[in-house]
């Protein structure tokens, strides 16, 4: 059975987005600190039970301590996510109302998705859902948010209203901020941790750029296809092929970078060649 200290410290550690090794180190460090505090309190005449409770009380509330540690590991992430959340809520409501009362279009599905994602960001920024404050979950939410904003841009571009330019600018600022957060979440390396080696960081950066080209290509051809065919056409699935290849190659690079660096770099090279081919086809055909 876990001791009071262990349960308390585990709760603190679970608030952070660290690797398992780092969590173990942090756990040990906090346990030592609490044990020293308990001993000091016992030497002042407290019982063991009283000293444990007092030591935890003096240390602080688990969520607050965990949030502060997380903030010190990833400075500005909280502020950026909070800005993204508030900006996106205002943008979503403005665009929804404008589209509804100017054009008579109620994008209820888009409103719900955008508001749910924005509110989730708000809760993550305030450290209310520690489970989602992880690279994988955060990036998934950012990607959903980027696609939601891109759909929002299709609504903005159909608007013929004096506010169109302002909302379009807000739209792109929100997408840019989301991309910055994806970048930061994926490859951020704090002073206290060396999670990513220089090589994997380099590969992340490379794939970030390649991903933007591939996704841009995919969205462009999906949009063009929808316009030309007036709806979905099976041949449009082909345009997602480069996206699937990029995802597979990216996954492969991350798998091989620790033990088979040559293979990882070879996959990166293949990814670059595919992207350059796409650019050549798009611009010179």
């Amino acid at each position, binding site marked *: 059975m876990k001791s009071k200290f262990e349960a308390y410290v585990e709760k603190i550690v679970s608030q952070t987005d660290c690797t398992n090794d780092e969590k173990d180190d942090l756990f040990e460090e906090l346990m030592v600190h609490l044990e020293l505090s308990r001993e000091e309190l016992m030497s002042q005449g407290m019982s063991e039970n009283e000293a444990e409770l007092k030591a935890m009380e003096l240390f602080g509330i688990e969520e607050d301590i965990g949030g502060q540690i997380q903030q010190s590991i990833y400075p500005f992430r909280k502020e950026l996510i909070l800005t993204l959340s508030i900006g996106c*809520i205002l943008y979503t*409501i403005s665009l*929804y*109302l404008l589209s*509804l*009362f100017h*054009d*008579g*279009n*109620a*994008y*209820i599905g888009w*409103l*719900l998705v955008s*508001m749910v994602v*924005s*509110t989730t960001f*708000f*809760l993550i920024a*305030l450290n*209310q859902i520690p489970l989602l404050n992880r690279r994988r979950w955060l990036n998934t939410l950012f990607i959903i948010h980027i696609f939601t904003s891109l759909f929002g841009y299709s609504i903005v571009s*159909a608007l*013929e209203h004096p506010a169109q330019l302002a909302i379009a600018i807000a739209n792109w600022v929100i997408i840019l901020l989301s991309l910055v957060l994806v970048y930061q979440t994926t490859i951020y390396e704090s002073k206290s941790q060396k999670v990513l080696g220089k090589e994997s960081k380099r590969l992340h950066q490379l794939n970030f750029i390649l991903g933007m080209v591939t996704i841009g290509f995919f969205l462009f051809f999906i949009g063009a296809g929808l316009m*030309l*065919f*007036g709806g979905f056409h099976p041949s449009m699935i082909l345009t997602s092929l480069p996206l699937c290849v990029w995802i597979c190659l990216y996954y492969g690079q991350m798998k091989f970078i620790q033990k088979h660096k040559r293979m990882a770099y070879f996959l990166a090279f293949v990814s670059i060649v595919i992207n350059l081919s796409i650019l050549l086809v798009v611009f010179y055909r």
Partner: protein
Amino acid sequence: MKKKNIIWIVGFLVFVTIILSVVGMFFNKSEDEKLNGLTGFYDVSDEGTIAYVYYSDGKPEIRVYHPEQSGVEKAVELENDKYILDPTFSADGSTITYISTNKDLEETLKSTVYQVNLETKDNQELFSFASAITEIEFSDNEESLFYLMAGVFQNYSPIASKRPHDFDVHEYRFGDDKHLQHTEMKEYSMHSLQIAPDNKSVFVTMDEVADTTPEESFEVHQRIFEIPLEEPSKRMVVSDPNREVDIFDFTMVPNNKEIVFQSIGNVDSGDTFQYELYKYNLETKQEEQLTNLKEYTANPVIRRNQIYFMVDKQFAKRDSAYHLYVMNMDGTDVKEIQLPNNETSE
């Protein structure tokens, strides 16, 4: 931030989202309800009365306005799943004949021609076809009504939207309630139907006969043709046969020696096309530019020795913004006619 405050904020956001969704369900408009304002369809009677098609929340109306009298009258109002096309005054100005089609022609392809008596407001159906009738025109003696009807409504290419094609000229005779098909051309497009005063030929704009190779077919121009009704295969170009820029719309000047037509004024500029009106003399073969508004100038109608026309000030944008203009026959004294679009009486 305190947990209680966070719960309040999240609760407020959920409440706002629910309210916005409910508001959206009430104010969302179907495609049929979205059309609003003036369209390019209008006609002018010999007395100067203007009949124009106007949409209110998607419902098409024919409004009648006489510039010398105050007020505007609603002659016809149809349901919001219909379009009204080509309102045409009778010679004495007592009736308006018009085409009504479904907005969704893909679902139900149907066109009906009605005639409304402006005095009694009696709206009588003349005839109806499960096809796309796009234009009507009275013969000179008003004993018959000519119309353009498309044989099919489809896209000939996967990258084109569905449109009426396979056009031919038809005639409806009021006396014996009979329909005649005059041509069997199945033209890809055919517009601006005009009838010769002797009723022996019609004038339309359409493409020249395409040559065999794809390269040559790209050089085909849209011109004004005269089609003799006795021998429809012998169609003749009446506009300048060497004109490099297409002609899209036209009207015959009552003296039958001149044509006022619409064409592109800036074809080589690379900018959004600007459509202007031109006059072409059939005898001297001289062409003269009448307007220089640098907008989308369209639908010329000649009445009372003046040229009426529409200008779309939002051409190439999603919603059109039509304005009715009038000018002298030589293109001078261009004036906008302010149509009262509110305060209609039944």
